[in-house]
């Protein structure tokens, strides 16, 4: 009871302090100076600083980071949204944290994607540079009680696994099989660590290389080989992260306890010659009566809205972070990854993975609210009541 009052009081005080600060220090200028100071070396709440850059493979680097001030330790397997500025535009991508929660520093391990603007930029960072990262998120996390595990990864999908195995090294009762797939020996990320891990009690490491083990024309991942390597597969808690083709095959196995993390950007739905044109109506738009946009039934709403000049808030663009969540008033959309259909009115959908099937009426679209900045409250105040409602119900629907 007392603590409730105390909490409420401190929240009120915090609000008052924030308002006063906003009114006295000309609003957003504080935010500006904060990011300036971050580059000068002052620790800030939303900037991490690069303290080392490690070459893992020819195309993969680990950024060792000093965590932002007030960083809440992540759970092994979680990711953070990294935000950088490209040609003046803030752009973010999700990266698994490859360090364990007890490690003194944070790590993200970044594979340079061909033509990838964000990964390309991250590879140019040097010691001392600052980058904005969001609090850790994600449900792809290690169970808290000891269980028998299979950590199954392909390529850069190994990054959340490192966080997990480092956490497991802390406990005595580990029973872990790590199966990792890479194209060639030179492409194995954390190769030395995997080698050392193989000698630890409770750990078994299987590394499969496409150029040495896979039969020609088979691609990297093979279900039969996995069953042979891990006969007690069905009894294990399975965590899988890798290229889309591998993920699909693993999901098709129907394993009872499967945890999946998708990090490849969402495959763009192939242009469908049979696609038809539908209308998407945006609520709460500046122009009276909303705005109606012609969209096609073979593309994600987010891409199509952006092509029409709208700037909805977005983050991961692969159905993870829910930055682009939006109220769908009516109409039917299909989830681009799971194929799930949402046809009931007033459902929350994620614009980045929702493909319209019929005419769709959307609620107000939140504009690029990057991540919880000090201005969050202010933006809440300017929302119209329906949108507030939508936000609240979004929080309810979202199991996170």
């Amino acid at each position, binding site marked *: 009871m007392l603590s409730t009052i105390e909490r409420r009081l401190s929240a009120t005080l915090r609000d008052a302090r924030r308002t006063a600060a906003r009114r006295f220090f*000309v609003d957003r200028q504080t935010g*500006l100076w904060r990011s300036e100071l971050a580059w000068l070396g002052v620790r800030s709440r939303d900037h991490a600083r690069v303290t080392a850059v490690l070459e893992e493979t020819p195309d993969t680097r680990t950024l060792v980071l000093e965590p932002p001030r007030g960083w809440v330790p992540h759970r092994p397997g979680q990711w953070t949204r990294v935000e950088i500025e490209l040609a003046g535009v*803030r752009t973010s991508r999700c990266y698994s944290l490859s360090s364990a929660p007890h490690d003194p520093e944070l790590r993200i391990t970044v594979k340079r994607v061909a033509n990838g603007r964000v990964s390309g930029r991250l590879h140019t960072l040097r010691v001392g540079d600052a980058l904005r990262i969001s609090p850790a998120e994600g449900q792809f996390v290690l169970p808290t009680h000891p269980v028998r595990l299979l950590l199954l990864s392909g390529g850069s999908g190994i990054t959340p696994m490192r966080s997990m195995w480092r956490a497991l090294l802390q406990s005595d009762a580990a029973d872990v099989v790590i199966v990792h797939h890479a194209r060639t020996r030179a492409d194995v990320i954390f190769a030395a660590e995997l080698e050392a891990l193989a000698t630890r009690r409770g750990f078994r490491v299987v590394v499969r290389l496409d150029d040495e083990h896979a039969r020609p024309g088979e691609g990297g991942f093979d279900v039969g080989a996995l069953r042979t390597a891990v006969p007690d597969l069905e009894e294990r808690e399975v965590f899988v992260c890798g290229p889309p083709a591998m993920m699909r095959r693993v999901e098709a196995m129907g394993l009872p306890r499967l945890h999946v993390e998708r990090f490849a950007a969402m495959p763009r739905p192939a242009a469908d010659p049979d696609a038809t044109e539908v209308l998407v109506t945006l609520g709460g738009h500046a122009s009276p009566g909303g705005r109606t946009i012609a969209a096609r039934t073979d593309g994600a709403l987010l891409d199509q809205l952006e092509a029409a000049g709208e700037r909805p808030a977005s983050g991961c663009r692969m159905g993870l972070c829910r930055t682009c969540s939006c109220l769908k008033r009516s109409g039917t959309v299909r989830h681009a990854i799971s194929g799930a259909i949402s046809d009931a009115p007033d459902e929350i959908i994620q614009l980045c993975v929702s493909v319209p099937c019929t005419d769709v009426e959307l609620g107000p679209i939140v504009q690029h609210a990057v991540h919880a900045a000090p*201005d969050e409250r202010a*933006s809440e105040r300017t929302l119209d009541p329906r949108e507030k409602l939508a936000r609240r119900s979004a929080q309810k629907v979202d199991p996170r």
Partner: protein
Amino acid sequence: MDTQSIETSGRFDPANGAVTSVVTSDATRDVTRSPMSPTTELRPAHGKSSRRLSRDEADALGRELDAIRAEVLADLGERDVAHIRAVMKAAGAASIAGRTLLHFGIDPVTFVLGTSALGLAKILENMEIGHNVMHGQYDWTGDPALRGDTYEWDIVCPGDDWRSSHNYEHHTFTNILGKDRDIGYQFLRVADEQPWELRHLAQPVTALALAVFFEWGVGMHDLRVAETTRGEQSLAELGRRSGPFLAKAGWQIAKDYVVFPLLAGPNAPRVLAGNVLANVARNLWTFSVIFCGHFPEGVRVYSEEETKDESRGEWYVRQINGSANLEGSRWMHLMTGHLSHQIEHHLFPDLPAARYPEIAPRVREICERYGQVYATGSLPTQLADVAKRIVRLSWPRRAKRAPSAAVA
């Protein structure tokens, strides 16, 4: 509606388009003799007037402007972000320097320097930062510090009021009598088409007072006091609209006139005086820039009738004819928040304002090609023009002839 009056007065010939200054001046006399009507067409601009465009012509002009717009949008990048951040840093630094000089200095030199620095900071924050950021000119960056829909600027007008009364009403219904509440701010008579009332006799004085207290005028604009006194708005609605304004004004008064002076202890009167002067300097400057943007001779007003189902191209044409530019140096443009390029601003209110000088020559060329007046002049000229107009229109009868007609 006015097509007929245009033809009978012989002001344009849509067929050949070109209008000579002699014809224009004749037209001026026609207008001045004709009974006052809120729908009077076109006023000449310094001996020229814009050619009336057919819808097809207007749309062709619109497409050319859209092409410029698309080009700038595609080119937005690091340069624009660097510019606005540099201005924000300069304004922040000037504000800190100004306040420090006022707080700790004791001599008149630091007083003048401190007040000037603070005034400069307030002008930059008000014009290049506040006004432009709140237009959403930097929304594309995704930087929360540059977000237009939550920015709160350093004047007594609440940001949300401004976003609705300025960004939406004024920029959508620019210079439409009865819809653009910015025409004379509902109490000054700045267009012949506005009916004369007794209180307009005092408008040279009220306009001066508005200049000194301009931020208060802007802040109270959306309360619709005039509408309430005329019985068009209920007192309850006035009360509802006053809430955010009083809250914002309270914070501004507390900041500049109570807390900062008190923090200075024995230096309180000096800080208070410096803050008052800095705010007044900013008020005079913004008043001048904004009045020169829409009220010099040559800028015309429109009737609701003639803007009914207007096309995008025609909307562009109205923006051109409803605005006037100021000429000056790069620094002058910056200090006006690039509102010295009022025409470009009204055409593209959501493009970063620092881009206006770059596109201005092309906009001007398009205007010339389509026979549209691209009104422009130096700040003193335009300001004198506005002053003359305010004095002239304070009388019920119009001057014998408009200044521009004198050339004929």
